[in-house]
C-alpha cells in the first residue's frame, strides 16, 4: 500500500472492508478505485488550508482497526436507554456500523419508500444501487470519504419515489458499543428523494459507554426537483470517541434541504458538509450548534457551491465553548460566474465561557457573479454582564442564570428541530453538559 492507504491500513484490513470483499462486481470495482485514490492521497498536514487548525495526530495514534462488524448482542435495556420518549419514527438501528434488524422498527411504510440496510439491499437486488451509489460523492473524494468508499459495506439506504411524502420521520440510530480493541466503523448512507418527494431524517450517533472508537460516516444525498428533506443530525458519541462525517448533497431545481447539525459528543469531531445545486430556485439551509469543553474538538467545514442562478443558501452555526474546548468553523460559499441572483448568508457566532477555550472561525465568500445578495458574519463573545445581572436581580443564582443564557443562545438552533421530543432531549443534554461545565 502506498500514500495515505499505508497510514490507514488497519481501517481497510478485516473481512468486510477488503476491496475484494463480498458484494456485486461493480461495487468491488468501486472499492478498488477508492483504494487506488488512497494510494495517491497523502495524510493532510497543517500546511493544507482545510487542516490548518486540526491535527490528525491523535487519531492516527489510536491505531483504529476495522472490526468484522459483529452483531454485538445488545443488553435488553439498551434500546430503552437510547430511544427518545415521544418520538414516533420509522427506526433503523446500526450497531458499530452494521444494520441491526433486531433493534430496528421500520414500521408501516407507504408505497414507493425503501428503507433499510445497504448490505441487505445489495444482497436482494445487486444492481439497485449501481447507478446511484457514489454518484453524488463523485470520484475526487477526500481522504476520509475515500477510506469509507474503499471499505464500503453497510449503512442506511433511504429511497423515495416520485412525489412520495413520508409523514413520520425516519430515525437512524448509529450505536457504538465497546469492543476488545479500538475499532472504526465506516457506515455509508445513501438518501435519494425523487422529484416532489418529502421526508424527515433524524440521524443520531450514540454510545452506551465512554468507549474509545471511531466513526467515519459518509452520506450521499440527492434531492430531485421540488423534493423536500429535513435532516437533523445529532452527534452524541462517547466522550472518548473520534467522529468524522463527510456529507455530500446535490439538489435539483426547486428542492429544499433543511439541515440541522448538533455536535455534543466525541473528543475529536470533524464534519464536512459539501453541497451543490443542480437546478435553479433550490434552497439549502444549514443550521448548526456545537458544544466543546475540556479535551474536545469540534471542527466544521462547509463548502456550499452556487453553480446555477437563483438559489438560496443559509449557513447559521453557533458554538458554546468552555474549559479548554476548541472549535473550528471553516465555511466557504462559492458563487460561480453564472450563478446570478444568488442569495447566500453565512453566520458563525460563538459564546466563550472560559479564557482557555479557543475557536478558529473563517467564513469566506468567493463571488464571481455580479448580481447577488451575499453576506457573512462571525462573532466571538462572552455572556453579557447586563443579561446576567438582570436574571440574578430576579433571584436566580448566577450558575443557573449563566446556563439559562447559554440555553437561550443555543435555543435558536434547537428550535429548528422539527419534533418537540427531540428538541426537549437536545435541550436537556445541552443543559446537563453546561451544568458540569466549569464556568471560568
Amino acid at each position, binding site marked *: 500500500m502506498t500514500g495515505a492507504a499505508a497510514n490507514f491500513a488497519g481501517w481497510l484490513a478485516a473481512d468486510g472492508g477488503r476491496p475484494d470483499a463480498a458484494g456485486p462486481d461493480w461495487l468491488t470495482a468501486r472499492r478498488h478505485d477508492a483504494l487506488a485514490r488512497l494510494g495517491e492521497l497523502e495524510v493532510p498536514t497543517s500546511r493544507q488550508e482545510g487542516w490548518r487548525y486540526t491535527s490528525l495526530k491523535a487519531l492516527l495514534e489510536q491505531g483504529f482497526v476495522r472490526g468484522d462488524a459483529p452483531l454485538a448482542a445488545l443488553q435488553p435495556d439498551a434500546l430503552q436507554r437510547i430511544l427518545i420518549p415521544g418520538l414516533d419514527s420509522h427506526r433503523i438501528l446500526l450497531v458499530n456500523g452494521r444494520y441491526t434488524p433486531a433493534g430496528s422498527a421500520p414500521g408501516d411504510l407507504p408505497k414507493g419508500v425503501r428503507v433499510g440496510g445497504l448490505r441487505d439491499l445489495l444482497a436482494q437486488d445487486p444492481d439497485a444501487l449501481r447507478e446511484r451509489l457514489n454518484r453524488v460523492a463523485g470520484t475526487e473524494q477526500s481522504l476520509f470519504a475515500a477510506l469509507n468508499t474503499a471499505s464500503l459495506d453497510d449503512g442506511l439506504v433511504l429511497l423515495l419515489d416520485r412525489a412520495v411524502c413520508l409523514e413520520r420521520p425516519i430515525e437512524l440510530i448509529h450505536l457504538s458499543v465497546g469492543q476488545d480493541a479500538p475499532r472504526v466503523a465506516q457506515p455509508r448512507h445513501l438518501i435519494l428523494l425523487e422529484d416532489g418527494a418529502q421526508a424527515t431524517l433524524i440521524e443520531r450517533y450514540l454510545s452506551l459507554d465512554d468507549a474509545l472508537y471511531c466513526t467515519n460516516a459518509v452520506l450521499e444525498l440527492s434531492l430531485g426537483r421540488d423534493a423536500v428533506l429535513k435532516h437533523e443530525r445529532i452527534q452524541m458519541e462517547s466522550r472518548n470517541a473520534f467522529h468524522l462525517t463527510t456529507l455530500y448533497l446535490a439538489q435539483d431545481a426547486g428542492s429544499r434541504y433543511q439541515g440541522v447539525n448538533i455536535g455534543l459528543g466525541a473528543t475529536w469531531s470533524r464534519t464536512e458538509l459539501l453541497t451543490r445545486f443542480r437546478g435553479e430556485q433550490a434552497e439549502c439551509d444549514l443550521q448548526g450548534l456545537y458544544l466543546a469543553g475540556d479535551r474536545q474538538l469540534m471542527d466544521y467545514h462547509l463548502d456550499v457551491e452556487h453553480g446555477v442562478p437563483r438559489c438560496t443558501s443559509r449557513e447559521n452555526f453557533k458554538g458554546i465553548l468552555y474549559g479548554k474546548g476548541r472549535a473550528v468553523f471553516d465555511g466557504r460559499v462559492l458563487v460561480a460566474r453564472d450563478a446570478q441572483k444568488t442569495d447566500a448568508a453565512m453566520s458563525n457566532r460563538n459564546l466563550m465561557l472560559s479564557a482557555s477555550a479557543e475557536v478558529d472561525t473563517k467564513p469566506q465568500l468567493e463571488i464571481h457573479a455580479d448580481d447577488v445578495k451575499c453576506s457573512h458574519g462571525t462573532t466571538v463573545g462572552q455572556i453579557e*454582564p*447586563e*443579561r446576567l*445581572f*438582570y*436574571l*440574578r*436581580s*430576579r*433571584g*436566580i*443564582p*448566577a450558575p*443557573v*442564570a449563566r446556563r*439559562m*443564557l447559554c*440555553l*437561550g*443562545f*443555543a*435555543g*435558536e438552533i434547537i428550535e429548528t428541530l422539527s419534533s418537540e421530543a427531540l428538541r426537549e432531549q437536545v435541550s436537556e443534554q445541552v443543559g446537563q453538559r453546561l451544568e458540569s461545565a466549569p464556568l471560568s
Partner: protein
Amino acid sequence: MLSVKGLRANVGEKEILKGLDLEIGPGEIHAIMGPNGAGKSTLSHVLSGREGYAVTAGTATFHGQDLLSLEPEARAQLGLFLAFQYPVELPGVNNTYFLKAALNSIRKARGEPELDAVSFLRLIKDKLKILHLDDSLLKRAVNAGFSGGEKKRNEIFQMALLEPKLAILDETDSGLDIDALRVVADGVNALRSPERSMIVVTHYQRLLDYIQPDYVHVLAQGRIIRSGGKELALELEEKGYGWIDAAEQAA
C-alpha cells in the same frame, strides 16, 4: 425595613453618592426625584447589587441584614425588586420559563416548595387578571423585540409575581406615552399593600400624578437635600430643578 446611612459610592474614580441617608418603613411609598446626574440610578443599582459600583462608606440594612454584602440574587430572595429603567432583552430565553425560574429560585431560597407547572400557570393567570394584562408576552423571549411599553409592563408583571417587600422603580416612566404610563401606574397601584414598600425614582412629577407617594425626597449631587410630602413634588414641578443648583451653590 430599609435603612440607608451615610452611603457613598464611586463609579471608577468618580464619587456619585456622597453620604446618602434614607429610611423606609413597611408599606410606604417614597419618591426620589432629582435632576439628571444626581445619582438616582446609581442608588437603584447599588441597592440591587449591580457590578461596577464601589461602596466606599455607609450602610444599607434591609430587614436587619447588611444588604451591601449580599449577592444580587440573595437580595432578590430577601424581597428586593428592581424594575429596570432599561429592561434587558434576553433572546432565546422564554418569558414563562424565566418567570418560573425566578419564582422557584426565590421560593427555594426561602425554604418553600417549588411550584409545579400547573400551579405556576394558575398563579400567572391570576396575576395577569389583577394587572389587566393579556398573556401575549408570556410566549415570547424575555423583552426581546418588546416595545418600550411592553418592557415596562413586563417589569410590573414580574413584580406582581415575585411579590417583593421592597420594589425600586427606576425611572419607570421614561420613554412611556401617557396611555402606557397609566397602564403601568395602575399595575403598581394594584400591588400596593401594607407590607410592600416602594421607591419610585423619577425625573418628572408626571408619574406621581398616578402613583401617589407618601414621601418625596430630592436627590442632588449624591445626597438627599430635601424631604417632604407629596406637595414637594408639585413644588419641584413648578420651580424646576434650577433652585437646587442655586441652593447648592449657596451652601
